[in-house]
């Protein structure tokens, strides 16, 4: 029941906002912040549905209040009576909770769609590896628990992990995207999986490849050919270029 009330109240404010000139929604402010470009817009319906929040209750204090704050449902009077320290804590908790809900949302059908749009616009940056040819990247966490490690970027071309270019991005918690996101994304949109580049680099001196490096590169190419062979035997096209 509480959910229904929340959603109804939400609709009220949405309508009310037309008359008042500048109503700034918390989520919009959050998304507009410099460095938050990797986040997508989580539907308020999703945030207010208790079913989606299972096991998140203990991640912040005064869970319900934080949720209300995120969806702009918290009474102005309540906010006004808060000390600045409490407000700061509330804002901090809201960002953390939004991040954790975000990690769940981006692996839902709607969330994947929103992230697809961002991926197509290369909002997560492009692979710095020369032979990946500016392949757009996908954010990923190495842990699903917050506070362990920062977000990394996965390249679907070279299948490797990169550190975001900007320190604004490299400081974001990886748990806000989760460990499963790129895998889910590429399974949901197999047409987004690029052909893998075979080309690679071996250092040369006046045109001659360095012997040791060239030998290892040949061995690595042998491993690739063995994979091609084993995939072919199972009737799978590896999709290299």
């Amino acid at each position: 029941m509480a959910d229904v009330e929340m959603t109804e109240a939400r609709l009220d404010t949405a309508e009310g906002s037309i008359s008042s000139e500048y109503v700034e929604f918390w989520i919009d402010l959050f998304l507009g912040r410099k460095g938050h470009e990797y986040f997508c817009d989580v539907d308020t319906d999703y945030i207010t549905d208790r079913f989606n929040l299972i096991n998140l209750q203990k991640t912040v204090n005064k869970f319900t209040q934080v949720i209300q704050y995120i969806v702009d449902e918290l009474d102005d009077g309540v906010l006004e009576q808060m000390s600045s320290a409490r407000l700061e804590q509330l804002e901090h908790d809201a960002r953390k909770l939004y991040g954790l809900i975000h990690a769940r949302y981006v692996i839902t059908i709607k969330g994947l769609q929103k992230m697809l749009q961002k991926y197509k616009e290369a909002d997560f940056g492009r692979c710095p590896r020369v032979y990946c040819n500016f392949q757009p990247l996908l954010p990923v966490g190495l842990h699903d628990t917050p506070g362990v490690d920062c977000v990394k970027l996965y390249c679907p071309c070279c299948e490797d992990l990169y550190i975001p270019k900007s320190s604004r991005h490299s400081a974001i918690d990886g748990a806000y995207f989760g460990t499963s996101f790129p895998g889910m994304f590429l399974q949901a949109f197999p047409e987004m999986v690029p052909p893998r580049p075979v080309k690679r680099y071996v250092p040369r001196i006046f045109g001659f490849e360095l012997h040791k490096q060239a030998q290892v590169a040949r061995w690595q190419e042998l491993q690739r050919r063995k994979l091609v062979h084993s995939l072919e035997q199972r009737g799978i096209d590896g999709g290299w270029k």
Partner: protein
Amino acid sequence: MSEYIGDNSRTGSSEESGTFDEWIPSFCARFGHEYFCQVPTEFIEDDFNMTGLGQEVPHYRKALDLILDLEAMSDEEGQDSEEPVSRSIVEHAAEQLYGLVHARYILTKPGLQAMAEKFDHKEFGTCPRYYCGGMQMLPCGLTDTLGKLTVRLYCPSCQDLYLPQSSRHLCLEGAFWGTSFPGVFLKHFKELEDYVDRKNKETYELRVFGFRIADEAPSGTRMRWLRQYPKTSEEQLELQDCEFQIPKVQ
């Protein structure tokens, strides 16, 4: 403010008198020129080191004089004989000439030493690949011909090539470092290779809820070979077979 100080007072008042207008230091100090090291004028004055560059760069003589801070003199004598060339054209030629000499210099012992210092200070940036753990990179050209390709960065740890992170380095001419630089650097500083060999060779594998993705899926693992190194004795034997060619897969 210094612009307003009269010409005659400049020579006397300047603290580093004599150095304020030198072409090479000011070129290397320019924003975006962090990958360049300073080539000593003696190296440039040695005709042997400049062999063939006269054909590569237009207005070679004027460009050379500019680099060596001799331009004023030649300006006076050349005025009637040669057709006047605009300052910006000569400046551009000087930059090209310096870049090409630079590519030669950094393959010499003192040049390698100068670049090693920059390498140690991470002046060429660090590898963006997560598992390389901030390994320093080396600038590298993919061709030695001017005007073809911009500079790339080579990571000795993953042995791969990357684009510079900052846009101010993205448009630098690759031929100013040349195709042989990382190779010569690795050969010269053998300890770097040992260091890299000892580094951990952790790699990433895509997972969903902890499970690896099936090979049949388009997103199944296809690139593990790129970051793979021989470990078992069997793989070591296989590596030996790869000394001159890739053996057939049966």
